[in-house]
């Protein structure tokens, strides 16, 4: 496989799941909030836990987004250093 293709697959693997992870975080947060409201407290606290869960979900989405960015940045730095060391 040519190095360009390899590079592209690496980039796709690293960044291709950004959007999906973001959405999954929001849905997990929202779902947790709705379950707390409707099942645990039987609707007496609606809609508060739904909103709180949604807010936490969005925050978790951004957190996982930054995690991906920082991890890729760290790995890039590591690889650059290795390449420099090799010559």
């Amino acid at each position, binding site marked *: 496989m040519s190095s360009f293709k390899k590079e592209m*697959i690496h980039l796709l693997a690293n960044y291709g*799941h950004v959007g999906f*992870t973001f*959405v999954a975080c929001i849905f997990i947060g929202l779902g947790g909030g709705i379950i707390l409201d409707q099942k645990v407290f039987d609707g007496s606290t609606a809609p508060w836990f739904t909103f709180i869960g949604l807010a*936490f979900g969005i925050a*978790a989405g951004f957190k996982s987004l930054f995690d991906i960015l920082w991890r890729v940045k760290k790995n890039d730095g590591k690889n650059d250093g290795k390449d420099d060391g090799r010559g």
Partner: protein
Amino acid sequence: MEHPILFISIILEKLGLPVPHGFVGHTFLEQICAPYMTYTWLVMAFLFIVSKLTLGNLEMIPGGGQNFWEIVIGGMDDFFADNMGREMTDKLFPMIATFALYIAVANLIGLIPGFMSPTSSINTTLALTIIVWITHHVIGFRAHGLNYYKHFIGPMWWLIPLMLPIELISNFARLLSLSIRLFGNIMAKETLLGILFMLAGAFFAPLPIMVLGVLVSLVQAMVFVLLTVVYIAQAQEHAH
């Protein structure tokens, strides 16, 4: 939409076994004969037989088959060792490499007419994901003991009420995103190919999608393995 022609299902029906007409069956025998199960076994048999044929007798000077496997296994070994360390790689290489080969073959097999990708069923991908998710927590517990909880409370004690739910949500989101990404990509590919075959199969309309399908299959297998390795590496390293 027309029903796709799956040759294993046809053979099983000729043999008199019940093949479910929906996605999953009701009785145990129907569930076993569901297409994604039979094609999972086909992929497993394929991997067994091919590796047995090419690696049955190892030689000092490798022939074509042995060369191929040396490149594949060596490349994966280097990649894992780069990301999660030599010790962890030696321990977990069989599991993750099996996942990689299985997912890659299972994705690619769906491009051949008459076959279907087992990974285009959420049951298969969710099973793989749950194994990965539990494994990375077990590794975290074994590496840190009870101090593993520090991974989930953030950097400072007064941030715990904020960080604990966020970390828990983003951890559970791994379960969802890892399974649904693989399932969604492969099912979209299969459905698109099926529709294009039905609409304009005589004019080679599915051909460009098949080219894209090869790329998607390999990239999704790679993404799954990369994320598995990253999760295990993160569970193993010290909390920030």
